[in-house]
């Protein structure tokens, strides 16, 4: 199967250089060849009843961390806000 690495990379928000392209193509092809050995199964896919996640009763409660703490790892902040490149002209 031909896999369009450039298209997949775009969907994944990755840039793949010319030099890397053929390596990824080869590896992905061999992995896809392996997974294609899976048998046909005609069952219905159902929701896992055993592992249903429960909603947390406290899901509206704040985290208890200050704004400064939460932003302490952000690459760029100004006046308590995260700064990103301009998106709209």
């Amino acid at each position, binding site marked *: 199967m031909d896999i369009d690495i450039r298209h997949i990379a775009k969907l*994944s928000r990755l840039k793949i250089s010319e030099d890397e392209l053929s390596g990824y193509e080869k590896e*992905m092809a*061999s992995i896809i060849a*392996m997974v294609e050995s899976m048998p046909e199964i005609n*069952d219905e896919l159902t929701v896992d009843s055993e592992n249903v996640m429960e909603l947390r009763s406290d899901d509206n409660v704040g985290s208890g961390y200050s704004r400064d703490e939460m932003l302490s790892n952000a690459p760029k902040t100004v006046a308590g806000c995260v700064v990103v*490149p301009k998106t709209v002209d």
Partner: protein
Amino acid sequence: MELYEYSASELSGMLSKREISSVELTKSVLKRADDTEPKIDAYLRIDPEMSLKMAENADKLIASGEASSRLAGIPVGIKDNISTRGIPTTCASKMLENYVPVFNATVVDKLVSAGCVISGKLNMDEFAMGSSTETSYFKTTKNPFDLSCVPGGSSGGSAAAVSSGSAVVALGSDTGGSIRQPASLCGIVGLKPTYGSVSRYGLVAFASSLDQIGPFGRTVRDVALLQDEIQGRDPMDATSAQRSYTSLFDSIDGNIKGLKIGIPKEYFGKGIKPEVAKSVTDSVERLKSLGAEVMPISLPSTDYALSAYYIIACAEASSNLARFDGVKYGYRAKDCDGLIDMYEKTRSEGFGREVKRRIMLGTFVLSSGYFDAYYKKAKLLQKRIQREFADAFGSVDVIITPTSPSEAFKIGDRISDPLSMYAADICTVTVNIAGLPAVSVPCGYSSEGLPYGMQIIGRKFDEKTVLNTALAHENAFGGFRRPEL
């Protein structure tokens, strides 16, 4: 005998009787790390000042008589994908090189309040993707039994530190074998607990439906001690199971009379080194002589498990790792031309090759037109594998297989061939797919002295039977064999 050489259960007694102090013990472990790290490279970060401070606090806690945990004062190593407040947590990735969590993972909170000492943060494959620690952005950890070999992965730093004595016990995480396989390759004990029994809050997610934090130790009892400390319901993890837990340490005695052991033929054939298979079969014979009943079983879908695993794990990873975009935390590329360019440059420069490949594989299997052929099929296969295990556990109490198809391989041997690297997980991935508990225990050694591991798989939430079988094996086979360093 130096203090770092004792097991956690022995040290626990010595500490509570105040024969030794946590500061003395921590100094011994740190000294050992000084000696071994130049050769082993197990740690990404050691902070002696912080560890000794924790040890002083532990000594006060013990002296006050208020220490409620058997692990009070014991140094524990933490895999670097488990969040530690104020201590960098990098996932061995350039992407998180300077990331310092503002919160502790629930397991870390539990260890801190138990009075444990954090001995440092341990190396791993980048974002836990790999079976050798070679995908770490920072360094490759070496196997203490042979420095030219890998320690396994992804929790290779955890396994190598415990094996070489630079941690008494350690935490790792296991998505497809990442605790059990390195435990096997480094000759120690590693438990992948039942999905839902240990909180994942603060574990940097790889594949959320498969990830599970678990303990490493040099003895089965040490693993039980650490599991006792970390297991339990956590409201901060919506997949954490609502149930009560009893002490594993207190409930295992190594008596396995009447235990029914299933041996699945699919795990002893193609791809498994005959010497490994023989050491496991010999160990099963020893268990039989202790009163266990052994019967052949079949798990027919095993051959497809690796495929199903890589599809499910990569699909979840592609979604989980979407958060690393250079906005709120982690690496951000320089000189970007707009927002999309920043995302793409940041991710391309911040992630290593293996991580990028898995993100792309996951994106591919979830992309329009391919969902039914790959992801849906893998999920159906997962159901089938779960059913086959459930059927088998109708007639047996534990299932025994090799942990890894071979002993430790040479550094560099497999890193450029993803399929041969993925094959290292062939015996372990089914357990994650089925959400079961399983332990790896050393069960033999190659002619070069490299350890083999045996995997004991149990019913959901039956860690007790799994560890009890492991203890019976340990008693019969002999305990941890220290590597010569």
